[in-house]
């Protein structure tokens, strides 16, 4: 059985890995881990508690967690359907749509932030409309942070979920249809549970990207303590005056990320 969702039988003997793989895998791991370890070594541990427990740091941490969570939820709610349409839809020009979805990845985040400012800023196309119609201004609010994060993180979710949808195929949806399930029901009861691992790993990627987001946020949402100054922005500011503080705050970011991912990931694997 294909069983993306299967309980691994503890009796299944591991299919061996080619030995040679371990060398590049080790190198790749070292490339990622060593710089972070180096960062840890540079850290001024005794000063750490003071730095991390400052009001500014706590504000930023709270804001970072809040906005990254909101953005991830929005990414799932909007990006999930987009991934399904890209993977399953039969539209002319789907190929072009697919490339466009990747654009926020290529755009330097600051430019992405500027693009958002041009669009949703008070003088922007959409921004003017929003202000006239509802009296809402988006930039420099926490909503702007969420928007900026969603913009940069959306492609992550879409691309990994689309990959999972493609790999899992449509066989089970076809079976559901022959059992009388409407597309909506088949989607809810078959597609979603089957691609849950893909969705979760996409969500983890998106969350991580949101947590680390800097350029688009500072350009679009500004850097206001408690409202828009997330941890990465605080790191940037701290660097102006105190590199040690910046490093310490980065480590906080790293720890938060590892904790959140460790909480989210097990389900990916167990299911």
């Amino acid at each position, binding site marked *: 059985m294909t069983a993306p969702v299967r309980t691994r039988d503890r009796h299944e003997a591991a299919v061996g890995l080619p030995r040679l793989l371990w060398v590049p895998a080790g190198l790749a791991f070292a490339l990622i881990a060593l710089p972070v370890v180096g960062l840890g070594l540079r850290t001024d541990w005794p000063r750490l508690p003071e730095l991390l427990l400052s009001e500014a740091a706590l504000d930023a941490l709270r804001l970072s967690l809040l906005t990254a969570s909101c953005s991830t939820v929005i990414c799932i709610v909007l990006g999930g359907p987009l991934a399904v349409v890209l993977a399953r839809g039969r539209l002319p020009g789907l190929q072009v749509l697919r490339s466009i979805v990747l654009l926020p990845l290529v755009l330097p985040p600051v430019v992405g932030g500027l693009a958002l400012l041009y669009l949703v800023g008070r003088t922007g196309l959409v921004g003017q409309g929003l202000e006239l119609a509802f009296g809402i201004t988006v930039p420099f609010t926490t909503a702007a942070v969420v928007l900026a994060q969603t913009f940069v993180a959306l492609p992550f979710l879409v691309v990994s979920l689309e990959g999972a949808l493609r790999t899992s195929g449509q066989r089970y949806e076809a079976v559901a249809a022959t*059992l*009388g399930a409407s597309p909506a029901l088949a989607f809810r009861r078959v597609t979603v549970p089957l691609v849950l691992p893909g969705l979760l790993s996409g969500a983890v990627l998106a969350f991580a990207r949101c947590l680390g987001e800097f350029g688009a946020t500072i350009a679009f949402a500004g850097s206001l303590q408690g409202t828009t100054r997330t941890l990465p922005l605080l790191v940037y500011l701290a660097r102006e005056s105190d590199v040690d503080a910046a490093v310490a705050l980065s480590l906080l970011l790293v720890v938060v990320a590892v904790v959140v991912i460790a909480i989210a990931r097990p389900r990916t694997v167990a299911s």
Partner: protein
Amino acid sequence: MRRPAFTLDVSISAAPGEVLAVLGPNGAGKSTLLGVLSGLLRPDEGLVRVGEHVVTDTAAGVHVPPHRRGVGLLAQQALLFPHLTARDNIAFGPRAAGVGRREARARAEELLTGVDAAALGDRRPAQMSGGQQQRVALARALAPEPALLLLDEPLAALDVDATPAMRALLRRVVRDGKQTAVLVTHSALDALVLADRVVVLTGGRVVEDGGTRDVLARPRSAFTARIAGLDLVPGVCDVGGLRTPDGLLVSGLTDGVDVGDTAVAVFPPSAVAVYATRPDGSPRNVLPVRLAAIEPRGDVVRLRAAAPPGGPAWVDGLAADVTPAAVADLGVEPGAELWFVVKATEVAIHGQ
């Protein structure tokens, strides 16, 4: 329905409540046919009607999606939903039809018992054996009680204990329920027990179509004969028998066929006597063959013929049922040259 190197071109119909068996060799287009009926495949040209409703009509551009056809399909691969337990797999269809959770589970439980898998209700597909999966898949296909039920080899992979029981269950469901069913099978027994009518497909075309008993008792194609367990020789009707392509006359009783018509000679393997040397005697049909295989079957042993070197090709595949004692007396091994002898009175010749 056209594919590279394969074209399915059939016209079949089943009356409401009728069970239609589809037989045919591998690659004949049986699964493709069910795909078209269920709506999972779009034919290049064609019309499919279920009850009153036209569900596919390429000329009019109609293609009703599978879930709105009222058609259930048990595909050749079980494809149980890997994330659901056996019970939830079976309850899926009734739930989709709007049946309440409790009622759907009760129905699932009942069907689980019906397919003799009551103990497996809480298992996921990955925790079941091949035959267990097949049972649950069958139960799942039966659960929504669709107006038209399409079953692709539903009894494959089942053990001897289970096969009769499942066959009885299917019979109950499709015969007593007022469901119309199309059943793909490789077994004459399934067709005989379950089906009112039989369609035989070969190479994407219908080669036989009729009442189950008629088709299996008077096969017109080599494939049907093989399924029915009969020997068949094709040729042209001649006076007193059938003239084979290489000119030999197979004597037999003609049955409403005119001389010159294409016809087939049919006889049961049990009517074939086997000799190691050419016998002299009353039987008119004496065929030189090479022994291809010896297959014990219960009380008798089936000897399967192949064409002898330089002999006619049409003897290939003919079978003779003899007693084990006779085989011991003959003392033969595959490859030996033998004579198959059939009395003319045992040979029925009918048109094609």
